[in-house]
């Protein structure tokens, strides 16, 4: 990965946390003193390196793991804000990335009953839940949105 792409990635993540949502290419360009086309080109290289996920239609951020730029079934309260996570793994990852306690709000995909689990010192307060991964690790990036 190019060093300037690492720096773009780190600034993008910083903006995501600062704004509480995904920054647009235009906002990122202003923040780093570049133009939006260069930002989109850098994001595309980062997408190809699996460092984030770009929306193929808009060229904007779709996923900055563990954060999601779009609403999902995994909402996380952490650091005084609500975030969307890409999946259950990423939901725990939001608290890990922000280095804070928090709460995950979701629902059981089987029965639809709500799931609300606090995270304290990186551990779930309810250890009766279970995590299911459908796709083998070797195929995660075949369709990362489905994964």
């Amino acid at each position: 990965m190019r060093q300037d792409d690492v720096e773009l990635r780190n600034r993008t993540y910083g903006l995501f946390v600062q704004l509480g949502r995904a920054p647009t290419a235009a906002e990122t360009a202003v923040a780093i003193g570049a133009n939006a086309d260069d930002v989109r080109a850098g994001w595309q290289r980062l997408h190809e390196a699996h460092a984030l996920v770009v929306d193929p239609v808009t060229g904007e951020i779709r996923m900055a793991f563990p954060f999601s730029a779009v609403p999902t079934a995994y909402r996380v309260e952490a650091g005084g804000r609500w975030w969307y996570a890409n999946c259950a793994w990423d939901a725990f990852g939001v608290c890990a990335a922000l280095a804070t306690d928090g709460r995950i709000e979701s629902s059981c995909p089987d029965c639809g009953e709500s799931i609300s689990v606090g995270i304290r010192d990186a551990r779930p307060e309810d250890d009766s839940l279970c995590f299911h991964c459908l796709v083998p690790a070797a195929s995660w990036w075949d369709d990362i949105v489905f994964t």
Partner: protein
Amino acid sequence: MNLFRSEEHASEWLGGRAPGETVPVVTLAELAAAWFGDRLAPDWSPHTREENQAILDRAGLTDAFWRLPG
């Protein structure tokens, strides 16, 4: 990658599909802490495949299902 009320609920949800892998939520929390703990570090650099595989291994996820592509 979903969170279920229990292993039984995950099985019900799967129906006849290939099952994937189910792990305790405590393991998931450990995995997420190691995988994402440095994600906002100012000096972040990308994990290598070997570093990510080692994180999975340390969480006890060592079978073929959890082998990252080479």
